[in-house]
């Protein structure tokens, strides 16, 4: 839908503006911590898989807040210059649900997004710089 000018946006669009964006459902995970099991976490893992933070693409992601999700969160928080907590805090969730480009942030398991540094995380959150 194209609107040559903001004044051209018809009323029915405005009335539908409260419809949920695809990732709004992730807001329900606020405060969710490692070790918990929540319905829908598999979809959040798919989100991180799509943008490269979880490298493998199994047929089914579990609903567990496991090490893989925590690791992905830390890498995501590093890339977006958020506090690296490994948890689904409000600041991180606000960033996750924002509209964005569909291209991955992490390609082939390597992110050079933050300050041009290639980096990877262990589950402890320590930064390790790779030679390439």
């Amino acid at each position, binding site marked *: *839908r*194209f*609107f*040559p*000018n*903001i*004044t051209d*946006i018809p009323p029915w*669009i*405005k009335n539908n*503006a*409260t*419809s949920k*964006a*695809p*990732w709004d459902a992730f807001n329900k995970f606020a405060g969710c911590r490692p070790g918990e099991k929540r319905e829908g976490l598999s979809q959040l893992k798919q989100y991180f898989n799509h*943008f490269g933070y979880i490298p493998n693409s199994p047929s089914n992601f579990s609903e567990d807040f496991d090490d893989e999700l925590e690791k992905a969160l830390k890498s995501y928080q590093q*890339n*977006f*210059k958020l506090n690296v907590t490994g948890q689904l805090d409000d600041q991180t969730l606000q*960033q996750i649900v*924002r*509209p*964005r*480009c*569909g*291209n991955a*942030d992490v*390609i*082939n398991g*390597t*992110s*050079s*997004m*933050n*300050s*041009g540094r290639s980096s990877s995380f262990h589950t402890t959150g320590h930064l390790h710089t790779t030679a390439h």
Partner: protein
Amino acid sequence: FSFFPGTPRWPSNRQDLTYSFLPANGLTDEVKAVFTSAFQKWSTVTPLTFTQVDSYSSADITIGFYTGDHGDGEPFDGVLGTLAHAFSPTSGRLHLDGDENWVVSGDVTKASVSTAVDLESVAVHEIGHLLGLGHSSVEDAIMYPSITSRTRKVELADDDIQGIQLLYGTNPNYNGSTTSNTQERESSGGDP
């Protein structure tokens, strides 16, 4: 700034690039002009040039609006969420989500609809991918991955310029500022 793995770029014998729009979209000249302006942001700082052509099949860069699954394994998801994606050099494919409420002109920050997305802002970002840039952690950079609806961001940041000039060099006419010849930064209310 970052690059795609392997640092793909348009080769030195392909610096004058052509672009074309998916005929089935039937875009108006006004919409096409948004992309012309977006390409200009990048040509201002590099030796690259961009010329619109009618022949979709022979153009270096192809631009199309699609909805849902459109055959490249990266389906769009309706209003908001994923707005667009683009491929690394020398694929030249730029896809935008046809379900978005794209604002072509006017001050998008004053839009009454919370889902209004500024077309040029997204176009400038995706062209960066077409030229070989990956995402940046610098929030002010065009290549930052996310953009809030009702936001306009079309000026290249230093981070974007450093990245693209590493790939292609500098436009000999570039004077070190991307804003002096434009009338962006509408929210400033001050000097153009």
